């Protein structure tokens, strides 16, 4: 006898194999609906693991834990949350921030590379970012936003890259994003005719000399951009009501709420399945880096609290947005990360916070095993030539290094990608695939 999914879940719940809440969540999860994924990169991380001085408060059971005071808004949505405490990312000496920006969502920055043509302090990835893979699978453009996610070297850090290491563009103001993504203007016949004439010409530029591969890539990207623009200007745009203001000139802090609202609307309307949000020094703190980088200060935790409040509200808004048999949250995975794990540059055991439906089996505090120093060499990553570094330099992070996780950032992103419909056996650099994190 063929049983449907709902009856299987109900019978498991009746037999005590699933908690009532878990069964409810699984029932709400619509198998046919696309899985939306949002990645949030926060400057200086969420402070949930590594060298943080505010630790998760556990009780005896895996599910009995609470966020520390600095992340207290998350406690009210804890039932939708899985904490990963934490993951190995990079270990190379150098400015941990600069090395990590392009690695956060790619896990593809080779060992020993510290600069690129883009910036003298920031290496680029050799592999695509997870959001780009999801975008390609869905055939829908990802929403990519930056709320002042920058450091002293460049004004905005790119987080997303294609398979040929081309950085993916992102909006830097909510007003521009709203105008581009949610304007309701309907092209007139004249508009369409002009667009047709213009895009018909500009998609085939020619140059007198032979272009090298790098220069051809610029034109390829240009043509791809024009093709996307053509589709946009030729199509009728669905107007969506947005509740958060997105006004030119408003602060980046206000922009965060507007971005999150656009992401909710984008997921709800099916305009996109994937989003990336970078959040930087939107509190305009003097000596931001010094205040946040070397100590878990009160300022650090005050800002984390502000951001946690916004994310918690976003989770609640998804939970309140109907979708299929359940809510939008049921078919969404939110991954909170950062270029470093906390104020002390943690890269060996970087904490991640996930929100979502049953796919992530929420409510857990996942603590991958730590690797003893004898195993550190096996945790290294490839250099540009594919060779492996001999070992980790413990001196870079000072004495007491005992926090190298046995699972990596790549492991988590690979699993999240697969939960969202990809079929990855490997993600990022080959060395970074160690095993499962969530299962």
């Amino acid at each position: 006898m063929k049983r449907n999914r709902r009856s299987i879940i109900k019978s498991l719940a009746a037999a005590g194999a699933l908690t009532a809440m878990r069964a409810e969540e699984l029932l709400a999860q619509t198998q046919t609906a696309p899985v939306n994924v949002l990645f949030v990169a926060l400057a200086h991380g969420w402070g949930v693991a590594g060298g943080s001085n505010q630790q998760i408060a556990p009780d005896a059971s895996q599910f009995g834990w609470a966020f520390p005071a600095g992340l207290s808004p998350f406690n009210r949505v804890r039932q939708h949350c899985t904490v990963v405490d934490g993951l190995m990312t990079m270990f190379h000496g150098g400015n941990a921030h600069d090395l990590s920006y392009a690695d956060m969502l790619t896990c593809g920055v080779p060992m020993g590379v510290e600069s690129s043509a883009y910036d003298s302090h920031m290496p680029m990835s050799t592999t695509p970012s997870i959001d780009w893979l999801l975008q390609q699978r869905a055939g829908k453009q990802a929403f990519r936003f930056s709320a002042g996610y920058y450091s002293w070297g460049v004004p905005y850090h790119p987080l997303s890259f294609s398979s040929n290491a081309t950085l993916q563009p992102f909006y830097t103001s909510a007003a521009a994003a709203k105008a581009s993504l949610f304007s309701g203007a309907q092209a007139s016949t004249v508009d369409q005719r002009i667009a047709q004439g213009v895009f018909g010409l500009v998609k085939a530029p020619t140059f007198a000399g032979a272009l090298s591969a790098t220069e051809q890539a610029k034109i390829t990207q240009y043509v791809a951009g024009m093709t996307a623009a053509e589709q946009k200007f030729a199509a009728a745009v669905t107007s969506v009501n947005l509740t958060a203001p997105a006004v030119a000139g408003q602060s980046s802090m206000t922009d965060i709420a507007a971005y999150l609202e656009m992401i909710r609307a984008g997921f709800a309307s099916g305009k996109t399945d994937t989003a990336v949000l970078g959040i930087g020094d939107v509190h305009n703190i003097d000596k931001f880096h010094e205040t946040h980088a070397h100590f878990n200060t009160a300022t650090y935790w005050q800002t984390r609290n502000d951001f946690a409040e916004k994310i918690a509200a976003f989770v609640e808004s998804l939970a309140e947005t109907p979708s299929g048999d359940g809510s939008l949250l049921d078919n969404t995975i939110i991954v909170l990360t950062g270029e470093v794990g906390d104020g002390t540059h943690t890269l060996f055991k970087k904490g991640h916070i996930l929100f979502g439906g049953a796919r992530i089996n929420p409510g857990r505090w996942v603590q991958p095993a730590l690797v003893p120093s004898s195993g550190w060499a096996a945790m290294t990553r490839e250099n540009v030539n594919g060779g492996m570094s001999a070992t980790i330099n413990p001196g870079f992070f000072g004495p007491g290094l005992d926090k190298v996780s046995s699972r990596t950032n790549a492991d988590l992103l690979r699993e999240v990608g697969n939960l969202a419909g990809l079929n990855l056996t490997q993600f990022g650099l080959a060395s970074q695939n160690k095993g499962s994190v969530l299962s």
Partner: protein
Amino acid sequence: MLFAAKCNGCHVDQNNGQFNAGFRAFNVNGFTNATAYAATTPEMLAAFIQAAMAPRAAGGGCTTDPTCAPNLAAYLWSYKLPVSITQCGPADAPKSKLRRLTDKQIQLTVPAIFGPLPAETVWPNFNDGAKLIGGNTMADRLLVTDLGAEMVYSAMRPIAQAIIATNQEWAACGASTSVTCRATLQAAYAKQVWRRPLTVAENTALTASHSSAANNSEALETMLTALLTDARFLFRSEIGVNGRLTNYEIATLLAYSAWNSTPSPAVLAWAAQPNPLVKSQIVAQLETMLADPRTTAAIRELYKDFTKIDLVLTRPKSDALAFTPSIRRDLLTSAELGLDDSINGEDDFMSVFQGGAFYVNANTSAIFGADETAPELRKIYLPPGERNGLLNHPAFMATHSTSSTSGIVKRGVFTNEQILCRFLGTPPPGAATSDPDPITVDPALTSERVLLQLTHSAKMPCAGCHFQIDPAGFGFENFDVIGRYRTVEKGVVPIDASGSLDGVGSYANSADYAQMLIWSLPMRDCVAQRFLSTLVAEELPATSCLVTDYQDALEAAKTPKDLLRAMINDNFTTRSAM
């Protein structure tokens, strides 16, 4: 080291195999480099040392000791190897590139072709962002992404409409029912927009783009939007054919270097000759172009990109400072006017950074410590010894500070990496997690300089970098977060802006420090390196053959315009494949 006391101001040994400032001068193989050291005998080298080194040596050099230069020359000559320096060849040439126009270049180019547009015109904003270290116009950073493509089209269509509304030729054709005028305008303007004649196929395709328009106005709007949205407008080609730039590419490179704008019809006509342009023709054309007032603005952009003073408009500042948008705008304009004076005054290209004259108005008077009441910016002279040129200008100081403090470390890092081209490298082991030492003094009665030293810089491993960073920042301590001159901080704590920096020398205060930087060979070489990188749109390391050649050419150069003249060498038209 011979004459160490006299020469160490510039030729200091870094104990790491390098001699700051002295590296080139001590490269004895460089003696055969005809441009700078045309020395074929020790006597010629002695004469060069006497002439070239003495003026730079504050309190040292060979100015007073007649045996100094000959002895030094003999010493160096003894190390001369029987090897001649390889001159830059085709393989060293800049790489073939497509260079997307900057926002500023688009804003200058379109009116140069079509005439003035309304002040309210909204120009494309590629949101490229400003790089703090290096140039903002590097070809590999300026791209057209998906969002950029959408933005370009959205911006260019209204601009096309504005051209049709304001340019008489286009307006007349737009109102006409004759299709002939479309072809006339296309023939006249398309080659200006794309900076070269269109091929037959390109002309046909352009005509086809607007052939289904309902009327002339719509056809012209389509044609103009297509021309201005096209990659052949947005990207300047420096690709070349068979390793050599075409005549039109040369004309375009000259125009954007000298004018930051498109080649005029006359320059395009000059490029139309069938034979490849030769160096003498290019030099002559550049001289003609340098007489155009647009050159001042183009060179000004080089200096602005080097100092990053545009960022004064957007740097976050504490609300308590009341550093309003209008003050920021006036400070930037003040700096621009000062730059223009120096550029037009044919000052030495390094002297552009110095001077006691500043443009001040009522809005900015308090920041300058002046008593100007006029709303318009007027040139005044401030007391010597307090504020010295662009490196002490509030636009520069406010750009390089934190939101509420002077930012010794920020200023020190910028000076090292951008002004002196000294890459600081990565933090040493342990630096990342190094907690500050507890404060044992009263912060309210202790200078930021001392606090930095006590809590951070003096301890290991931080000292490794801060030994180099801090002295480069101390020298700006006479200026606060928005560039106000000060002798005390926190109300009562005296400012100490003195110090000593390798390769630059000792300084007593901020004005002195600026002067020492300007006189230093490291900054002079770095200016050459940065400016050449901007002109070729490619980050060039100090060891690049192109940089060395350029620096040598600038040894004889004087004025800011010489920065442009120096780029035309025997390899100017050569391009190497990537």
